[in-house]
């Protein structure tokens, strides 16, 4: 409902946004990542966190917002710990089944809207 007598206002948020959103792609050596269910995908993320950051690292809420069929996922991380969580994903190199794997971050944004399109165009 739009009120006619609402005055034009500008709000400026705090500098630190509560979340960090990122687009990551997962590759597993010799395996089709498209077959992974969201639960499996999330499990791998939790493994990655647990390995590098331990139980405390695994206790941060990392949300798997969307999983595409090519192993690309949208994640939401708490802002304050995003550096460590990101590094933990980077450092993850082998799945529990001893297959080599890699999480690679494609895009990062403090707003979910920023991940709608990638403006770094490829030719």
């Amino acid at each position, binding site marked *: 409902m739009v009120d006619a007598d609402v005055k034009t206002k500008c709000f400026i948020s705090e500098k630190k946004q509560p979340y960090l959103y990122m687009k990551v792609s997962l*590759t597993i*050596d010799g395996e089709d990542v498209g077959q992974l269910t969201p639960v499996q995908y999330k499990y791998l993320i939790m493994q990655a966190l647990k*390995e*590098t950051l331990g139980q405390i690292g695994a206790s941060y809420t990392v949300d798997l917002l969307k999983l595409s069929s090519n192993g690309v996922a949208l994640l939401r991380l708490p802002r304050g710990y995003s*550096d*460590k969580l*990101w*590094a933990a994903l*980077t*450092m*993850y*190199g*082998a799945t529990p089944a001893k297959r*080599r*794997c*890699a999480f*690679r*971050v*494609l895009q*990062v944004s403090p707003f979910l809207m920023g991940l709608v399109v990638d403006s770094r165009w490829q030719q």
Partner: protein
Amino acid sequence: MAAPVYTDMNVLRQPNLSDVIDLGIELGFEQFAINYVVSSLQGGKGKKNEKLIVPPPAEVLLNDESVRSIQKRCASFKQLSRLTAVLEDASNTHRLGAADIQAYDIIAVQVTNEKTFQLACSTLDVDIICFNLSESLGFSLKRAMINLAAKRGIHFEIVYSPALQENTVKRNTISNAMSLIRAGGGKNVIISSGSEQPIDLRSPYDVINLARLFGLSHSQAKDAICRNCRAVLKHAESRKTCKSVVSVIKSSNLSVKEQWVLHQKNTREDSKKTDADMDSSEEDNTEDAHGNLMDSDCEAEMSDALEEPEKKKIKL
């Protein structure tokens, strides 16, 4: 000199090298140093006189054809040859000065104990010092030594790909990288993949973030895969041009775009006293020509490439 681009200073020479580089380019790297590792500077074990055989850099690098096909996709792609020698002891280090080793773009040594570490930091003429980060070092990294090496323009390398596989290795890598960064204050560090397989590679931004985990600030982390790599290249270049960052070329060899230097000089001769003795008719050097326009900046660049005051200037 090329602008600082994202560089991976350590890609191992092995059969599926081109796959690694393909992926590296896709991820955003533009420069790669292809690494050839010499496990010992001594040749064969049996005979004393048997010499170490080092392949010429051309054999290590990708051939022209594949370079051209890569450059179609990424115009700024560049490959560099790098030789890493593992130093078990202080003997045979003179081999590093031999022509076949000097033919490589970058020369690195992997130190294994305190003695070789000190030697490499203080006297050896190398560009990069690396460690086996997957085990505990067994000696302490002295700040004085690291500062000395930094002063000589030598960089320290952190290789991340071994850490991706095993937990103990990961832990030791983090620990060693942190103590290296703590001792050196985060200066003169480069981070490279050391990858054998494409799956070991991470994108530049991942690496920057990883470097922050090791204790670098954001700008230092970026420098670690960007500006410091260029500094390594400049240092390597200086090794070839009689230990100096000033190189001399004949004025007749100047390209058309650089010819202005000569005319500029003639009109401005009186403005610069220091340049008066450099007669521009015979020889000139491009670096100094910029000095005419922007002294301070040029000097800043020189010092960031090589912080070695006594070698900085050369009498012409």
